[in-house]
């Protein structure tokens, strides 16, 4: 049976593969970039492959991912095999049917529904047991087993059906007990399917993001979750390096196993050529072999890959700068009574010096000094963080919310009072950032960073420096304007233009601000948060409001960017370290706060995240590269009328989020969607009528 594949068919196949592999090529390409931009290629470098070894959080996430995948797939394979056996021999019809139906639910249900339903279950049980912080390794394991099991069962069950009953009977006749018969006959018969099921479970587990995202806690983060929090902020290319390594390993193994298998086949076919003359049989055998080969190859690859990755991840040394480099009171930290405990730190993404680009890895250094294990996880908005804390699903010992959120959390009794005797370094915090409105008596918070919102523009696209926020409404830049993708910051800009108080509780004010934003929508290219880095760095947009510290990071990758301080003023904010009520290790958290205020540590953070620091000792250091920087530390005359956000009353908050929802959802013209859906419905109905008529027509013939 010779088949001709025509040239167009070949071209088509090649085209599809090009599309499939283009994004992967991009990732591999940028893993060799020397700068940390993921949009501008500077020069070839292996830098990110070395950085990968220092990225403790990523390595830890990789280990966690593999650990979870191995354990969950073993459990689900064993449990699935047992269940399949029971189901196959069971004669209770309704029982079988109801298990199979339940079994189908996780496969048909969207992942997001499975994820939130399990999260709600865990939190629900947690509330009943009066336990907070239930989310963690245990819940992840349960969730993974739950979504793997249906696939395992569906993989094994059909093979059972094709098994000759007499095989087991014969074994029993020959003196086997049923259990022996199972191990000696059934198990070997099913081995290929069991392997396939295991591999499938393993792959599903490694790949899963959505379900894990909802049921994970601070102590146990997997690689996909880590990547997600990275793509929300900016992706450090060492993740690309890691993916490239995984990808290349899989690819090489595939090629190798395919090659050896082809050789083997050629040898086999030479011997057996004479026997196999029946065409149909030949095809059938090929098919079967093919399936089996696939399974074998896949098993080999996964086994190999996991071993390689395990060895790789276990053998990675974690390097921290030597202790001498950072003159701090080592004894104070060495002798703390919290050695051996764990500390769950919940911070904004990219908001700490993490060892990248030769900086100090603040968390690793803290672990070395104190012997306290730090679980460091990220959020990307105050509201995200608030939802996690409020749900009680996870326990955190240290959080870094912004001003208005601190006010809200104090109001709702979600924060603990700090013991400032344990934080002697509080003395370094500038008086300007002590006793702020949300914490007038300095009871709950220690200021970490200070910032305000400024107008960023690209000098190549915007020729005269903007002086007002109205530039973001300017039709000349239509389609080149970015806007905040969070309601509070977005509304603030409209409110500033309208001359309103940012903390107004008057519904009419908010309504007018909404109208202003709606007016802006047609010229807005996208509502973004941290995606802004790539877009502005690559010069793809002209104007954007953002936090001034982040502007400095962007400017490092694109010198055409400049910043303006609009005349209407802006929002100023502080992010402060606080301890939530659910904290399990308050003492260690206070030690950590004190450590973060150490001048040298504070300096490392200030250099890394480019935000203004409230630490007076750092501000005086000559080696501090932003010392006296006009953008980070503008003259008091510029910032005097800048406003802090306050916690809004519940009704105003609800109004704001409803208006924001309207802006995002209802503002769009949706007519084409409905027309499209209607056309589709008509086509389907016509098809149904056609199929029905045809069936009738045919039946007439057969009658």
């Amino acid at each position, binding site marked *: 049976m010779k088949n001709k594949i025509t040239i167009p068919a070949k071209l088509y*196949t090649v085209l599809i593969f090009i599309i499939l592999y283009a994004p992967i090529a991009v990732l591999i390409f940028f893993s060799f970039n020397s700068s940390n931009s993921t*949009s501008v290629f500077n020069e070839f470098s292996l830098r990110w492959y070395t950085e990968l070894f220092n990225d403790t959080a990523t390595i830890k996430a990789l280990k966690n991912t593999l650990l979870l995948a191995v354990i969950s797939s073993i459990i689900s394979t064993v*449990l699935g095999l047992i269940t399949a056996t029971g189901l196959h021999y069971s004669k209770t019809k309704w029982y079988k049917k109801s298990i199979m139906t339940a079994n*189908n639910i996780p496969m*048909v249900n969207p992942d997001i529904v499975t994820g939130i339903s399990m999260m709600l279950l865990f939190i629900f049980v947690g509330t009943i047991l009066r336990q907070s912080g239930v989310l963690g390794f245990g819940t992840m394991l349960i969730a993974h087993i739950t979504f793997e099991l249906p696939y395992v069962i569906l993989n094994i069950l059909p093979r059972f059906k094709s098994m000759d009953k007499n095989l087991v009977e014969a074994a029993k006749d020959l003196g086997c007990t049923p259990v022996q018969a199972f191990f000696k006959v059934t198990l070997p018969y099913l081995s290929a399917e069991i392997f396939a099921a295991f591999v499938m479970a393993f792959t599903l587990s490694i790949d899963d993001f959505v379900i894990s995202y909802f049921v994970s806690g601070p102590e146990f983060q997997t690689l996909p979750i880590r990547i997600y929090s990275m793509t929300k902020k900016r992706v450090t290319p060492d993740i690309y390096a890691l993916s490239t390594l995984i990808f290349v390993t899989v690819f090489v193994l595939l090629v190798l196993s395919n090659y050896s298998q082809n050789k083997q086949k050629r040898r086999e076919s030479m011997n057996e050529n004479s026997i196999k003359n029946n065409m149909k049989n030949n095809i059938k055998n090929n098919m079967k072999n093919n399936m089996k080969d696939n399974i074998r190859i896949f098993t080999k690859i996964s086994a190999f890959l996991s071993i390689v990755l395990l060895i790789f991840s276990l053998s990675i040394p974690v390097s921290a700068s030597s202790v001498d480099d950072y003159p701090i009171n080592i004894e104070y930290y060495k002798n703390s009574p919290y050695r051996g405990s764990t500390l769950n730190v919940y911070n904004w993404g990219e908001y700490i010096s993490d060892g990248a680009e030769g900086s100090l890895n603040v968390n690793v250094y803290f672990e070395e000094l104190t012997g306290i294990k730090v679980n460091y996880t990220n959020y990307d908005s105050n509201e995200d963080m608030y939802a996690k804390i409020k749900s009680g699903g996870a326990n955190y010992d240290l959080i870094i919310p912004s001003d208005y959120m601190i006010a809200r959390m104090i109001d709702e009794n979600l924060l603990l009072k700090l013991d400032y005797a344990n934080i002697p370094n509080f003395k370094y915090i500038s008086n300007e950032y002590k006793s702020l409105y949300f914490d007038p008596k300095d009871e709950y918070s220690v200021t970490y960073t200070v910032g305000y919102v400024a107008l960023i523009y690209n000098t190549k696209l915007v020729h005269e420096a903007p002086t007002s926020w109205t530039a973001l409404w300017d039709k000349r830049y239509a389609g080149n304007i970015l806007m905040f993708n969070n309601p509070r910051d977005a509304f603030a800009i409209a409110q500033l233009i309208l001359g309103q108080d940012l903390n107004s509780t008057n519904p009419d004010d908010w309504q007018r601000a909404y109208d202003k934003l709606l007016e802006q929508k047609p010229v807005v290219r996208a509502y973004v948060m941290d995606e802004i880095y790539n877009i502005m760095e690559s010069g793809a947009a002209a104007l954007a409001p953002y936090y001034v510290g982040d502007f400095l990071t962007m400017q490092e990758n694109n010198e055409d960017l400049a910043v303006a301080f609009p005349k209407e003023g802006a929002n100023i904010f502080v992010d402060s370290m606080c301890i939530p009520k659910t904290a399990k290790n308050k003492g260690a958290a206070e030690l950590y706060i004190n450590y973060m205020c150490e001048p040298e540590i504070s300096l490392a953070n200030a250099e890394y995240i480019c935000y203004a620091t409230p630490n007076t000792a750092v501000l005086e250091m000559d080696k501090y590269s932003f010392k006296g920087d006009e953008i980070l530390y503008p003259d008091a005359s510029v910032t005097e009328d800048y406003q802090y956000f306050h916690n809004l009353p519940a009704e105003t908050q609800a109004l704001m*989020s409803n208006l924001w929802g309207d802006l995002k959802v209802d503002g769009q013209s949706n007519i084409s969607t*409905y027309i499209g859906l209607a056309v589709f419905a008509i086509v389907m109905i016509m098809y149904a009528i056609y199929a029905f008529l045809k069936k009738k027509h045919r039946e007439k013939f057969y009658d």
Partner: protein
Amino acid sequence: MKNRTYNTISSPYALWCAIFIVAPLVIVAFYALTDKTGNFTFENIKHLSMYTDTIARSIYFGIIATVVCLLISYPLAYIFSKTKVSTQTILVMLVMVPMWMNFLLRTYAIMVLFEDTGIINNFLQKIGLSPIHMINTAGAVIFGMVYNYLPFMILPLYTSMTKLDNKLIEAAYDLGATGFQTLRDVMIPLTKSGIVTGITMVFVPSVSTFYISQKLGGGKYTLIGDVIEMQFQTAYNYNLGAAISLLLMVLILVCIAVMNKFEDTEERGMLV
């Protein structure tokens, strides 16, 4: 062994299903029908009408992505099935390998490709064409869906194509059928199971995605998955989030039920 013994063997899983599959759905329904203080209310359900546009858009995007996937994959799977067996193995592998690259990163890479100053537009400008605005459009979101879920369509189609006996196609031609008639009356009916599986595997994740619309849509194309994610992660309104999830679940079950009407198989369980 007695029937009861076998039922005992599978009972741990029955228990597992009850606790970790059925109970969570009951809790979702419970949250959907209560307010923050736990009192019974229809408020959340009433609130759903606010999201009509979002739901319509999600379904519309999902349908387009599924149809595009089907149109791309059907000829491709056919080509695959016509190559030599050893080539088939390689081709199938090549379809599966990209799935080892994290899905979030692949989507992120599409962003890099599609940017106004991204790789594709740079290339277009180099060869003297005008750049195309691709990122943050509905097209980009649908491309993201098609790209990420294409393997889920190709693989089941390929499996059903390999089961297709070539002689039937030859017979159709011998009896005077045109290419289109053969496709319509022979091939499609015989590969129906693959088509249905493929459609389910693409449609369900497309309708419920939130990552793709966030990254490629630039926050302008809110889909039902985004709304759910927002209620749970940011807005802290579990009750409304649960109500929307419930709606999404019902929607998908209805779609699958309708589709199963087209493919009348009695074999499998009740849902698939």
